[in-house]
């Protein structure tokens, strides 16, 4: 399957495996440790790191003898109780410079479901840290991962693959930052208990919003949601009078007509002339009268507006992927040009070969 003494990648991701299969592939930390223990004595597997996320299970390592990858695959399937043919159907394999290019693309977010997302970078770092702590990272993995982190940062900062938010909730947060600069003093009012409204409110909370208040036409639902979010509940009938006490109002009710009228918003902005007011209308039919957008110092975005921005950002990221992949290919070829010849020159099974150790 792989030439002896080479760097390899073996695994499956959302590109090749549906969710139902990925669920069966997913490893727990205990199982990763068990896999390492099983493979420890395997002849020829010099180094190993396991990247295990909700979208991928991938093994990166150095194979120093024929048949190593087949043993790795067998051990994994046995541990997970997965039929060998199921894994084989979803399996992706790369070696040498291609494997490095894949790891670099993964770390830079190019291989993610949501192109450019940065959570994967931390997950790759965790995989490397676990391999280092578990003693299965050697000179090749040290060199490859450290250079990959450096190059992935380069790709993210020198291309537009990570620019702009691509989810409605994060776009709303980004817009709020464009208005308020920072969110640590911002007070958010959530109207209704819709799912997307709740997600948006959580996004504001995670970015440090000062307070979150929930109001719903059903008092019990407001109280329950507020308790779940660690927020305060506001009686529905007080909403118009309390608009001015908030900086961001998220509309997410199922009300048949607008619940915030232009008169409500105008009164609120008069009470706080130096502070802008940001309305986010995620409801259908709309919770906030469209004419509110015409008020001075008031900003209104509805679901379509946010979706358009998210889509534009997504398209902009996609347009940058080709440029990013060119950089990835160049950097991977450079790195493999340094590692490959020394790896090929190392005697098979030589875990501590000095020419490889000198890479670090």
């Amino acid at each position: 399957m792989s030439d002896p003494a080479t760097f390899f990648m073996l695994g499956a991701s959302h590109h090749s495996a549906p969710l139902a299969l990925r669920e069966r592939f997913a490893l727990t930390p205990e199982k990763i440790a068990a896999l390492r223990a099983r493979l420890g004595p395997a002849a020829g597997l010099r180094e190993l790191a396991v990247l295990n996320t909700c979208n991928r299970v991938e093994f990166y390592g150095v194979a120093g003898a024929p048949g190593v990858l087949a043993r790795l695959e067998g051990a994994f399937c046995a541990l997970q109780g997965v039929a060998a043919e199921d894994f084989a159907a979803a399996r992706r394999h790369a070696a040498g410079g291609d494997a490095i290019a894949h790891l670099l693309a993964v770390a830079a977010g190019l291989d993610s479901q949501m192109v450019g997302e940065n959570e994967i970078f931390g997950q790759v770092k965790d995989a490397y840290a676990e391999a280092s702590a578990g003693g299965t990272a050697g000179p090749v993995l040290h060199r490859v991962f450290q250079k990959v982190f450096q190059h992935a940062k380069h790709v993210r900062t020198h291309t537009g693959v990570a620019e702009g938010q691509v989810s409605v909730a994060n776009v709303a947060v980004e817009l709020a930052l464009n208005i308020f600069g920072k969110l640590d003093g911002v007070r958010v009012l959530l109207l209704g208990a819709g799912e997307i409204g709740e997600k948006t409110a959580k996004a504001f909370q995670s970015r440090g919003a000062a307070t979150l208040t929930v109001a719903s036409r059903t008092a019990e639902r407001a109280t329950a949601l507020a308790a779940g979010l660690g927020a305060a509940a506001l009686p529905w009938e007080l909403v118009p009078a309390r608009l001015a006490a908030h900086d961001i109002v998220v509309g997410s009710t199922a009300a048949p007509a607008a619940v915030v009228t232009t008169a409500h918003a105008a009164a609120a902005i008069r009470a706080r002339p130096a502070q802008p007011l940001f309305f986010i209308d995620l409801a259908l039919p709309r919770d906030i009268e469209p004419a509110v957008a015409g008020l001075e110092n008031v900003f209104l975005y509805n679901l379509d507006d946010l979706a358009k921005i998210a889509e534009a950002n997504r398209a902009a990221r996609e347009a940058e992927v080709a440029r990013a992949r060119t950089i990835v290919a160049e950097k991977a070829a450079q790195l493999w040009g340094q590692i490959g010849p020394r790896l090929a020159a190392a005697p098979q099974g030589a875990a501590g070969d000095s020419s490889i150790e000198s890479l670090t």
Partner: protein
Amino acid sequence: MPNLTDRQWLWLAAACYLAGFVIGTVALVRGRRHSRMAMFATLAVGYLFQTIGLGVRGRAVQGCPLGNTFELFQFTAWSSASLFLVIGATFRVSLLGYFTAMLAAVLTLVSLAIPEWDATARTHVFGANPWIEFHAALALFSYGVFGLLALTSAMFLLRNYSLKSKHVGGWFSFLPSILDLDHIGVRLLGAGVVLLTISLGLGAVYWVPHPATVDLVKVLSTIAVWLAYVVALALRLAGALPARRLAWACVVLFGAALLSLFAVNSSRHPPPPPAAAVSTP
């Protein structure tokens, strides 16, 4: 230090400011954020050259170089650049360096490109009173503050437009938040009003006992500028002037302030010689 004339130093300064503007424009056209360090360094070097140029001019005229339109424009650009070097480093206001470079480049290049502005027969405009010289310098420095205020106001208007029209991508994304720009604007407005008030107070001490020595157009135009800024500040603090209207007012008022410099300068010109005297060899 090279033995350059004052105007040569000022040309070098203008070139630096222009370079800053070009660096920023190229970055924006490419959809990238310009290097903050490169912009700061370019403006700092331009500021250094301009300081040397104005210093050389000041030594030559034995006073503050505020004797003609050319010098007034140069001093206003110098004030804006010096404020940016303090505010830009402290508050890290995105794109402010770019706009400052643009303003400084326009003011310095225009003043250098019109030789007539620097060909005024100089008189000892400040007499022997150092307080009057301080009054003039402080007034011009407050104009520098108002220049920077006009820039942050223009940035506010662009940001407001982008948010209202829902065009938040591209180079709009590099602009600071609307609230930050509003806060900076109000602080600059307050600082400019305080400086100009002190300056006019000092001037009044001299002018009130000697009203015939100061041109009425100069006094009225300066007081009009000061009063307009005071009214804008008062309305803003009272909550009667929304941020967007204040921003427009600050942009327009700075234009008016620059125009008032012509009135200030015209009051200093000695009466023209009779036509016959000019044509006689």
